[in-house]
């Protein structure tokens, strides 16, 4: 065997993983068919991680297919488009496919049945700069279709000297789901075109497509499409083992690089895109088609399981009716059985994350047996792809010892559920980890708000002190003026004394300036020690020091002091000129500014954390 042939299937296994029954054949018997055009579409506006897109339409507006109906809000967001032509009948909170069952902003469109496209202009991406390409992808609503809906434009660009490896995630490791498999079987050529676009945008030196070995037809189709391609693209067939489709697991499989949590794969020279995302990038770049539909697997307890190219926003009810839902279905899983969730209602609209809908029945998914005690058998640790010790994390979570859980890398858990799958005691381990994580998050939130309250309080004390001090200074200045006037009128001895007082005051001022400088260096919100500043003032007034004299100050310092004093005086004058109401307004404004800055910082941090978390999740 020559070296090339050996390399073709060279992979680096990750620790753990499980092999649940695949249930893939049910939905691969028929080609992808176009989904129904429903009477009404409920298009969620939260179609990416990050901010909810801003609605651009109002009730009563007529929209065309592909028309942008909501614009990206901020950088971690993507636009949303009308999936078909029709009339906007509602803009507002609705039930969305999310496990929480909370309402979120949606745009409801009544379709006119004509499915009329908006005029499309082809984007000349070959001659556009990076910024323009990113904006274009954002405005085409391109997000990760593997389920994480991470905005794709955030992954394009950035790597100036080129990317080492572009990984295409076609592993599709979850049982039941076959949408990527079918897409590759039927549209391999377009996918390869898409890969070429992304490879060019990222200047990737090698492209690896990771496919599990339970999709031989897809592998053949992709290899055939690649054969005519001038750029070397490799299809790496990996063993069927869940969670091979987790971005980190796939990167490890294909490149032997382990991306630690909190680190972006780009930092290791790897970027990972889901194969369906690549397809939409191709449609957007070459055909100016925004993401208004996706292939979704309808399977489980239905008459005609298969894959449907459905419009985003199609109510799940319509999709189930299309596939022939059976009467004894008791719930519906959105996503795969390992990481998906039960939808809170079937009237929710399909989102870009919706790769699979499984109708559940008692026969297909028997109720889980009673949870038994953990016997620390370690099966979970053997199965954990993050190489955690789930039995310990379970123990810490159960005893609410969250700090310890965090210490033992709780946040490295990718919630793949492999541990719960193998547990002989039927413990829903992932639930304990989700619980621990949410408890830690809420504790952090509480702490943050407590910190903010404390800072507000400290700022108030600081302000009160400052006002008191300024009042004292004003009084002192007045007293000094009086004194000066008296000194000017009387004998030379008095004049000498006045000079001394002045010198003392200047020293005091110098000290104050120093103290202020020191203060400025420190956290501006920490309260000023009142003594540090107010003492010299009283000293100046009460005890005119006998020591000399202005001449001893070095001229540069004296100049600085003079300037500072002038500035201070000007400020004071301005402050004095203000009425009490104005003063109050000024303080409030300052406070508001500080709070706004703090809030903005917190938001930025949260956004960053969310983006990171999302990128960490499976593609």
């Amino acid at each position: 065997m020559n070296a090339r042939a050996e390399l073709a299937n060279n992979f680096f296994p990750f620790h753990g993983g499980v092999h649940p029954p695949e249930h893939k054949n049910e939905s691969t018997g028929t080609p992808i068919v176009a989904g129904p055009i429903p009477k009404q579409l409920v298009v969620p506006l939260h179609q990416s991680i990050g901010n909810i897109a801003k609605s651009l339409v109002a009730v009563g507006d007529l929209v065309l297919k592909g028309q942008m109906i909501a614009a990206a809000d901020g950088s971690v967001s993507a636009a949303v488009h009308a999936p078909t032509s029709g009339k906007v009948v509602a803009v507002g909170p609705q039930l969305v496919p999310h496990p929480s069952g909370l309402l979120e902003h949606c745009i409801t469109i009544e379709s006119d049945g004509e499915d009329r496209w908006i005029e499309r202009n082809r984007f000349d991406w070959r001659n556009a700069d990076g910024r323009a390409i990113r904006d274009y992808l954002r405005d085409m609503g391109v997000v990760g279709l593997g389920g994480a809906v991470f905005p794709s434009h955030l992954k394009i660009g950035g790597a100036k000297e080129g990317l080492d490896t572009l990984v295409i995630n076609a592993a599709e490791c979850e049982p039941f789901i076959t949408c990527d498999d079918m897409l590759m079987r039927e549209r391999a050529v377009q996918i390869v075109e898409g890969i070429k676009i992304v490879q060019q945008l990222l200047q990737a030196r090698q492209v690896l497509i990771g496919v599990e070995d339970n999709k031989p037809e897809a592998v053949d189709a992709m290899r055939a499409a690649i054969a005519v391609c001038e750029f070397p693209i490799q299809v790496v067939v990996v063993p069927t083992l869940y969670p091979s489709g987790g971005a980190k697991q796939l990167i490890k499989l294909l490149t032997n690089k382990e991306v630690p949590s909190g680190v972006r794969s780009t930092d290791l020279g790897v970027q990972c895109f889901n194969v369906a995302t690549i397809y939409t990038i191709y449609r957007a770049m070459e055909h100016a088609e925004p993401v208004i539909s996706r292939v979704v697997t309808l399977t489980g307890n239905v008459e005609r399981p298969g894959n449907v190219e459905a419009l985003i926003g199609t109510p799940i009810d319509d999709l189930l009716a299309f596939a022939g839902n059976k009467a004894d279905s008791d719930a519906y899983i959105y996503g795969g059985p390992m990481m998906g969730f039960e939808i809170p209602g079937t009237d929710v609209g399909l989102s870009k994350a919706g790769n699979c809908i499984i109708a559940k029945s008692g026969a297909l998914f028997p109720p889980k047996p009673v949870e038994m005690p953990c016997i620390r058998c370690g099966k979970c640790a053997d199965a954990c792809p993050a190489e955690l010790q789930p039995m310990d994390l379970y123990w810490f979570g159960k005893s609410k010892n969250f700090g310890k859980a965090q210490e033992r890398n709780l946040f490295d858990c990718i919630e793949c559920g492999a541990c719960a799958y193998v547990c002989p005691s039927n413990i829903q381990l992932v639930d304990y980890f989700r619980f621990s994580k949410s408890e830690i998050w809420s504790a952090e939130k509480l702490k943050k708000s407590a910190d903010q309250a404390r800072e507000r309080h400290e700022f108030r004390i600081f302000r009160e002190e400052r006002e008191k001090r300024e009042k004292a200074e004003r009084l002192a200045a007045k007293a000094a003026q009086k004194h000066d006037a008296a000194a000017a009128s009387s004998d030379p001895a008095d004049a000498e004394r006045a000079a001394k007082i002045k010198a003392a005051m200047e020293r005091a001022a110098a000290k104050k300036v120093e103290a202020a400088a020191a203060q400025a260096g420190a956290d501006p919100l920490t309260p000023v020690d009142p003594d540090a500043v107010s003492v010299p003032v009283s000293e100046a007034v009460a005890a005119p020091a006998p020591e000399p004299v202005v001449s001893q100050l070095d001229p540069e310092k004296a100049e600085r002091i003079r300037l500072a004093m002038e500035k201070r005086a000007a400020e004071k004058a301005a402050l004095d000129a203000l009425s009490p109401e104005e003063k109050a307004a000024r303080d409030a404004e300052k406070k508001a500014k500080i709070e706004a800055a703090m809030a903005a910082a917190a938001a930025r941090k949260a956004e960053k954390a969310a983006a990171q978390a999302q990128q960490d999740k499976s593609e």
Partner: protein
Amino acid sequence: MNTSPFFIKPTPLQVVMFKVAAALVPAIVVYAWSFGIGILVQIALATATALATEAFCLKLRGYPIKPFVTDGSAIVTAWLMALSFPPLAPWWMIVVAAALSISLAKHMYGGLGQNTFNPAMVGFAIMIVSFPAQMSRWAAPLGVAPQSMDWSAQLSWIFSGQLPAGLTFDAVASATPLDTVKTQLMQHASMSNIFHEPLFGMIGGVGTEWITAAYLLGGLYLLWQKLIPWQIPVTFLAVLGGMAGIFHLVDPTHYTSPMFHWFSGAAMLGAFFIVTDPVTGPTTPLGRVIFAALIGLLTYLIRVFGGYPDGVAFAVLIMNLAAPFIDQYTQPAVFGRKGKQKNAGAKS
């Protein structure tokens, strides 16, 4: 509401426990074949007491009785304890031991999965410390004893302490091979003379060596079923055998061979069924190796230099105490955090 994963692999705890019990069956059969019905009586008594105590404790603690009594854990505990008892021990001893091991060593710590010490070994240790004389009255293998004891005589002895006329217990009892070696060596007997006694078979004691071989067989079944990690029995037996080997090489007249140590006493039972108890041992891969190695070391030291003929029970109990500590300091690195990033190298 149900949460993901919606699938689970159907390997319930009961199945795990009953597979462990099933792995003990060959040894029990060989035991009864070579030593008589006594062991079956001990197992029956231990099982009944353990289940009754389990039910009683669950009721006291307000737990659902059925799922826990049927989980099989009490049965495994009872069998392991009965197998470490002298088969002709008076009936009340195993009853007391089983009751104490379930109530004291298991439920007082919070029940299944929460106990610090191996319950079977706690029951055994309490009795050997409290009743050393009765606990050292081992039956001789059938056919080796000067007078044989039929099943009715065995039952009568266990339940009433009475023997048929003309039979004395001394005539049917014998020390275990490990004990014999130890006492005889103290009396300055030579090793070759000791091994010429009829009690000794090819490598261990008559009968005993076959029972331990059956434990080994059961252990291999557990390994095949992936119910125990191979590192534990391998490390334990390696260290026990290694220690025995070193001493045997240095002075073969005073120290028996590794084979003798492996196929005598509770070495095989311990290696596959007791040291491998997941609840009371460490869970990290390195921790398990350290744990098993130290038990092997302690077992050898107690056997050869300590006050008891066998050392598995005490070695296990001592190391049970250290298990959480070992876990704490042997945490493996998680995905992506293994010191140096391994490099992919050129792939194309």
